């Protein structure tokens, strides 16, 4: 049966459908609200396709297990929320260093600490970027509705395999738990990426960590013909530990450049009513739903308001933001944290003084009215 399938599901289920579509073979996780449905659904669905689901003893173990499974050539994912995402950070850095494709879903809830487990937040944006120690680069995607959760999950797998890197999918409690329509496209409608595998033959010296001219490194599955070393230490082209300054310098540049140099290919976004917009709302995730709602309503009344919806947050789409905000009377960043993306928008635009923050940090979804109130102040129309 290969035709589109219409479902009415939670965002977490849309994520699972996306993962299955992308070809997930292996999931390891530890339950945590509001991400648990991802694990529950995959516990049922993975064995139905011969895949593997394992509930590990904690989030560290889950992160490490998916890295191990990726090395045998499988498409892997784990899902968690704030406290669990904190626990995963060391192993996430390992995946950056050893260049292991994997997908890490963080359905954000209020933090810090145990915080607000059942309520929405977008407080982990910067943690996604800098949660693990040391210079590195990372890809983080996000989505505001179930169709996009599905598409971004597929993209997360594709980007992980393309760039040999962990990809973080930053969802939030509102999107994760809300129900809406999802159309699962027929097989083949969205292209899937399989990792590049080496064509170096058996018995020929294979250099697992020697990038090709295009920066990519063909992999060889554990259990295959090539036996090599994988380590979180700085390493040479064979994967053997090295602290040779040239090797260290080269590897760190490679890890950062392979992502930062491809920012255009990685950037995902949507434009809503942006043509001729005097006021640009920059938003993402469930906040973007309210921003879009407001823009749509106000456009109908002749106000020139548009939304730039970010679907990739890291690497930060600086050039895109500068371009789309150029000439705007004001830019309002709509998010549910204390300005994590706003600061980067300020740094990106020509006129940072015209960037404002419309936020909520009380566990409640930001509403179109919340945004409108701020907009009226900016427009000099009082409170």
């Amino acid at each position, binding site marked *: 049966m290969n035709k589109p399938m219409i479902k009415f599901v939670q965002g977490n289920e849309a994520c699972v459908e996306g993962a299955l579509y992308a070809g997930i*073979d*292996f999931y*390891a996780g530890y339950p945590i609200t509001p991400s648990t449905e991802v694990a529950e659904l995959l516990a*049922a669905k993975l*064995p*139905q396709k*011969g895949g*593997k689901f*394992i509930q*590990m*003893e*904690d989030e*560290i*173990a*889950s992160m*490490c*297990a*998916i*890295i*191990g*499974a*990726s*090395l*045998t*050539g*499988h498409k*892997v994912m784990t899902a968690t929320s704030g406290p669990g995402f904190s626990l995963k950070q*060391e*192993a996430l850095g*390992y995946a950056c260093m050893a260049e292991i494709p994997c997908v890490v879903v963080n359905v954000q809830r209020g933090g810090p600490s145990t915080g607000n487990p059942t309520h929405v937040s977008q407080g982990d944006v910067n943690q996604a970027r800098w949660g693990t120690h040391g210079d590195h680069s990372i890809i983080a995607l996000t989505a505001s509705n179930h169709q996009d959760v599905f598409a971004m999950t597929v993209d997360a797998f594709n980007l992980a395999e393309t760039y040999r890197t962990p990809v973080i999918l930053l969802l939030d409690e509102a999107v994760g738990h809300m129900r809406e329509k999802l159309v699962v496209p027929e097989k083949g409608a969205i292209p899937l990426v399989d990792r590049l595998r080496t064509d170096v033959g058996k018995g020929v010296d294979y250099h697992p960590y020697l990038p090709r001219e295009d920066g990519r490194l063909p992999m060889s599955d*554990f*259990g*295959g*013909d090539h*036996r*090599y*070393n*994988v*380590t*979180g*230490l700085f390493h040479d082209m*064979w994967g*053997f*530990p090295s602290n040779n300054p040239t090797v260290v310098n080269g590897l760190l540049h490679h890890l950062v450049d392979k992502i930062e140099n491809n920012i255009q290919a990685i950037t995902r976004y949507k434009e809503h009513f942006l043509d001729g917009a005097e006021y640009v709302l920059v938003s993402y995730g469930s906040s973007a739903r309210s921003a879009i709602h407001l823009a749509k309503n106000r456009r109908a009344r002749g106000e020139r308001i548009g939304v730039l919806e970010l679907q990739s947050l890291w690497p930060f789409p600086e050039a895109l933001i500068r371009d789309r905000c150029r000439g705007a009377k004001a830019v309002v960043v709509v998010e549910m944290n204390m300005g994590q993306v706003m600061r980067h928008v300020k740094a990106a635009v020509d006129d940072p003084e015209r960037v404002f923050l419309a936020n909520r940090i009380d566990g409640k979804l930001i509403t179109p009215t919340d945004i409108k109130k701020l907009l009226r102040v900016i427009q000099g129309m009082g409170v």
Partner: protein
Amino acid sequence: MSVKDYLRERYFPHMWCPGCGHGTVLNSLLRAVEALGLNKNDIVMTSGIGCSARISGYVDFHSLHTIHGRALTFATGVKFSKPELKLLVPMGDGDALAIGGNHFIHAARRNIDMTAIVMNNRIYGMTGGQFSPLSGLGKKATTAPYLTIDNDFDVVELSRAAGASFVARTTTYHALEAVDLLKRAIDHKGFSVVEILSQCPTHFGRKNKEGDAVNMLELYKANTAKIGSKALKENPALLARGIFVDENRPEYCEEYEKIIQRATGGKK
């Protein structure tokens, strides 16, 4: 094949101090693998961080040198995703039972098929001689200048209680015995643990006045005895060596195959 064929000579000389027991463990392990006639492509060695953990760089298997304490979790991902592979997981005492203690008991509880080798020098060697959960009472370490007050684990009893289906113990003095025990452990289906007391003359030996490597080896000889031996009967204070647990119990990956059968209605 000779033992040398299992080494990555490119990476020698190794990083261990002269007299370190970890090299002896490597030797015994390779002899066990050779005796079993295992194919190098079928073996994955996963290790954490520590002097002990560096062992994975020197072997010509698929090798995964990971982060401190988590070797068994990476190994679980490798094994569970590709059960036909043989997993060898050497760990330091701190690696296995301090930071990695939770993973250790859970891997044992699952009875997932892999061999955990605890290279027990009763000290944090790599970081310069701090006490570990296996140091035991009244020991000197850089972080125990007034002697330790921390009780230690008994690796054998801990492994048994956690559900390991094969548990053995030996020392680097008994290198041939170690070959035999490792062979049995690797051949065993399920979670196997081999604790090998391995001297760290640089830190534990020096701080605790156990002398040089030769002296420490002599102590292993003097202070241990085989299970069932006359020596042990006459002096129960000696540390027992040998096989403590060897049982056939459902293995995790095989049990999951049954889940796949159930989930697919037998179509897979």
